[in-house]
C-alpha cells in the first residue's frame, strides 16, 4: 500500500507510554514518563519528557540501506528550556537528528510566541534553517521533516511547507537501529526542568529496495513463485545497479530542478522545469497504475505521453549524463540477456498473458527512452 515503510507510530490514544505501533523492537525510557490529557484532542494524551529523559526504541532488526527518512511530530515546546538546543528526535544516536534552537520570546495580545530555528542533521550533514519559526506557547506544533538520498530536504510546519534545501547529503545511505524520542539535554541541568509534550510521533523509512517491492502493486494478478535460480539473483543485482545509475543521474540534475527556499520567499522551491518534471513523473505512475486496475487503454496512452514529457525534460538538463546512464544500463541489460534467457520459466506463460498491458507499457517506455537518447545524438 505504500513505498515507504512505517517503522514507529505513537498517537497517544490512551495513558500508556508503551501504546505505540511499530515493527518489532523495545522501548526504554530513562525515567518512566508521565502522561497528561491532550490540550488539543479529545480523550487523547501527551507524553511528557523533561530535559534528562527520553524514550529510545530499538528495532529488533536494523533497517539496512536507508535512503529516505520521514519524521512527523506533534509536540509542545517549553519556552523555559534549560539549554539553547531542544532535542526532538534522533536516529542511531545522532546519525539523523532534529532539534530546535531557542530564540527570543514575543508577547502580544495575551499570547506568546518564540522564534525557534530548526536544526536538522541527516547523513552527516547539518542544516540550520536561519529563518525563525514562530512557536506558540502551550500549543503543539506539527512538524514534518522529509529527506531523500537525492538530497531533497523538506520541512513542513503545521502542514505547510516551511523550508526546502536541495543537495542535503546526496547519495547518503545508512542503517537505522534506534529511534530516540526527545534526546536529553546535555551539560549541567537544574533538578527540575520543563517538559516537552509529544502528542504524535511517526517515523517512516525508505530502504534502497522498497520501491522495487512496491512494483507488485501494479500487477492485477498473483505472481507465480519462481525457484530462486541464479538468474533471479542476477536480476535483483542488475536492478539494484540500474537504480543506482538512475539515482546518480537524477542527483546530477537536481540543482537544475530546485533551489533552496524558506517560507516568505515569493518564488517556490522548484524551477518551472522541476515542477513540470515532478508533475509528469507522478502523474505517469498514477496513470500506469490506474490503467492496470481499470484496463483502460486510453490511460495507458496518456501514461506514455506523460512519461515521455518527463524523460525529455530530464534528458535535456544533462544530455551527456542521460546518454551515459542509458549506455551503462544497456550494458547491464546485455550482460543479463547473455546470461539469462526466458527459457526454463514455462510457469510464467499464463501470467504473462494476464499482465500483457503492463508488459506492453514497459516495452513502449523502454523504446521511448532509447529514441530520446538517439535524438540527443542527432
Amino acid at each position, binding site marked *: *500500500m*505504500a*513505498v*515507504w*515503510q*512505517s517503522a514507529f507510530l505513537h498517537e497517544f*490514544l*490512551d495513558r*500508556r507510554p508503551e501504546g505505540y*505501533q511499530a515493527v518489532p523492537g523495545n522501548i526504554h525510557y530513562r525515567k518512566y514518563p508521565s502522561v497528561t490529557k491532550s490540550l488539543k484532542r479529545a*480523550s487523547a494524551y501527551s507524553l511528557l519528557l523533561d530535559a534528562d529523559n527520553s524514550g529510545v526504541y530499538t*528495532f529488533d*532488526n*536494523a*533497517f539496512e540501506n536507508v535512503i*529516505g527518512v*520521514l519524521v*512527523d511530530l506533534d509536540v509542545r515546546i517549553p519556552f523555559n528550556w534549560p539549554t539553547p538546543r531542544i532535542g526532538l528526535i534522533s536516529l542511531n544516536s545522532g546519525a539523523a537528528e532534529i532539534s530546535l534552537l531557542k530564540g527570543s520570546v514575543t508577547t502580544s495580545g495575551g499570547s506568546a510566541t518564540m522564534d525557534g530555528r530548526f536544526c536538522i542533521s541527516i547523513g552527516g550533514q547539518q542544516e540550520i534553517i536561519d529563518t525563525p519559526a514562530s512557536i506558540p506557547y502551550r500549543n503543539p506544533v506539527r512538524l514534518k521533516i522529509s529527506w531523500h538520498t537525492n538530497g531533497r530536504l523538506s520541512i513542513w510546519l503545521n502542514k505547510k511547507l516551511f523550508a526546502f534545501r536541495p543537495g542535503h547529503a546526496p547519495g547518503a545511505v545508512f542503517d537505522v537501529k534506534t529511534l530516540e524520542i526527545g534526546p536529553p539535554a546535555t551539560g549541567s541541568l537544574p533538578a527540575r526542568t520543563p517538559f516537552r509534550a509529544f502528542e504524535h510521533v511517526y517515523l*517512516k523509512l525508505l530502504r534502497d*529496495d*522498497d*520501491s*522495487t*517491492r*512496491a*512494483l*507488485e502493486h501494479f500487477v*492485477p494478478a498473483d*505472481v*507465480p*513463485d*519462481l525457484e530462486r535460480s541464479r*538468474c*533471479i539473483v542476477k*536480476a*535483483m543485482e*542488475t*536492478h539494484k545497479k*540500474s*537504480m543506482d545509475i*538512475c539515482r546518480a543521474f537524477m542527483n546530477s540534475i537536481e540543482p537544475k530542478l530546485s533551489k533552496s527556499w524558506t517560507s516568505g520567499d515569493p518564488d517556490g522551491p522548484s524551477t518551472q522545469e522541476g515542477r513540470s518534471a*515532478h508533475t509528469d*513523473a*507522478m502523474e505517469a*505512475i498514477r496513470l*500506469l*497504475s490506474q490503467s492496470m*486496475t*481499470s*484496463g483502460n487503454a486510453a490511460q495507458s496512452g496518456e501514461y506514455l505521453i506523460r512519461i515521455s514529457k518527463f524523460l525529455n525534460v530530464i534528458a535535456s538538463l544533462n544530455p551527456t549524463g542521460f546518454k551515459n546512464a542509458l549506455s551503462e*544500463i544497456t550494458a547491464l*541489460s546485455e550482460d*543479463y540477456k547473455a546470461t*539469462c534467457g*526466458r527459457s526454463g520459466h514455462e510457469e510464467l506463460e499464463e*501470467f504473462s498473458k494476464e499482465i500483457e498491458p503492463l*508488459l506492453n507499457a*514497459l*516495452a513502449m517506455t523502454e523504446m521511448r*527512452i532509447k529514441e530520446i537518447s538517439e535524438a540527443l545524438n542527432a
Partner: protein
Amino acid sequence: MPDLTMFALFAQQRNFNLTGALSSQRVELLLNAWLPEARFYEEELFHPISLDRIMREPRRQFDLEEESVKAQLRLSVGGELVPPPAIYIKDDEAGGKRALNPDQEIDNALENLDLDASGVLTHKADFDRSNRYFGATESISGGASGVPGDPMRPRFPVEVGGECRMLLEVLKAEIQIAKAGAFPKRVDGLPLDAVMGEFAILHLLFFQVGKEEEVEDFTLASQQDVALLLIEAYENDDDEAFQTVIDNDIPAGWLLNRATWNALIKYAFLEYNFNYAYNDYHRYGDWPWVNQHEFDNEGCALVFERRLWEEAVESDNPQAALLDVDPVAIITSVHEEWQGADKFKLLSPDIARDDLTVWIAAGSHATYLQPGDHDLFNAGDVAFGLPGQKVPIPILAALYVLSPTIATLALLAVIAEHFQDAEDKTSDDGVIIGSQRSSEDQEDRLVGARVDVTPLSADRNIYDNALRAQLRVRSFGGRWGDHDGSVNHSPHYINKTGRYFRRLMTEIRKGNVDPTPVA
C-alpha cells in the same frame, strides 16, 4: 459442499455455545448497549448494511425494472445470463464458471451441495453497478453530493453485525471442527462455514524452548489434542488434571504460553462487523495505492473480562449488573492485518461509554480512533521481508524473465520513491450512528442503527433448525464479489476474532494489558 444440515447437526450434537453464561437475550442487550458511536465521512456512499441486504437487494431492484433494463443488468456467467446477484462456482467443463442460480432463488443456490470453496456471489465487479444498487443518492438536506455538515444520507437503514465470543469457547469449537474434519475448507484452509471463520491462534499457545536437537515433534494435530485436554480440565475446575496435561502431554522442548492461556480464559469480545456493499477507496485515496472491490468487512471489538459478566448474571439484578461492566479496551481493523495498522486503545473505567467513538475512513472503511487524515501505517513489508534479508522480489524476477526492460523498471522504481504517503480521510462532519452524546448541531446527522445479532448462545444458536435462513446467509464461505481481471479481488466474509486476539496479544507482550486472572 456447504451441507448446512450437516453443519447444523455437528454444532447441535456438540452444543456449540460461544457466549458462555450469557443467554442470547443478554448478548443482544450488551451489543446494543455498547455499540460504539461511528462517524462517517461526509461523501461516503456506502454505509453498513446487513449481509442479507447485500445479498438480496440487487434482485429486489432487478425485479422492479422494465425488461429492457433487466437485459442490461443480467450477468453473463459461463455463457448463461443470470439476474443479479449471481452465485457461481468454478467449473472447467462449463467453460470456467457455472451459475448455481440461473433459474432458481438465491436461497436454493446457497443450499446447493455443489457450492464449494470456489463459490462467488456477485452483482458485478463494478463501482457504477454497486452504486446503482446500494449507493447513497442524496445528502441529508436533499443535495446531490455530501459536504461537511450535510453528508450523504444512508440509502438503507444502517445495520451493524454484532457477535459475542468467549475466546476459550471459540478455540474449543474450532479445534472440534478441525479434529472431526467435518466442515469442508476453503483453499486457504479455513472452514467453508463462515460462522466459525478464523481464530487460528494455536501457534501463540505453545512455544519452543531449548536447543533444536532437544525439541520433540509437536504437530498441529497433537497441539489440538493437548489444547482440548487443557480446556476440559479447566472446564472441570480440575487443577491437578490441568497440571498433569502440562507435565505429561506437552512434549520436551515445548511450553504452554501462560499469557496466551490466561488471555483465552480471561477475555471475551463483543464484535461489531461493519459490512459494506462496495469498497470505493479509489475515489478518495492516493494512486497508485488505492483499490476497489465488491463487499468490504471492517469493524471493531470491545474487550471484556468475562468473569465480571459471569458474576453479574449471578447477581440479584443481572441486567443492571451486566450493563455496569465496562470494557477493558477497543480494537479496530485498519486495512489488512499483515500491515500491522490495527488500532488498540485501553478504556478508562467509568468513562468507557463516553470514550467509544470510531471514525470510518472514506471509501476504504478502515476504522480509526481519531478524526482527521491518517497517514496509512504500513509495516507489512518490513515484518515479512526482514531488513537485511535479500529475499527475491517475485514481480521483479518475473518481469526480468518476461521482458527485461531494465532501464524502465529502474526509472519507475526511482520515481515511485517519491510516493511517501497513502492517506485515509476521516471526518467529524458526516453521518453519525450509535451516538449517546452528540451536540445540538449534530442532530440532523444522527442516524439510527440496528445491531444485527448472530445468535451464538446455548439457548438460541444460528445452528438451530429454526434459524436456517440466517445460517444460509451468514455461513456463506465463498467470495462476496467478483474479479473482472482488473478490479481487485473481493474478500470472503471473515469474522475478525483471531485478528483482534493477535492484536490483543501484542499489547499483552508489551506489558500494556495484564491477562492474569483474578484469583
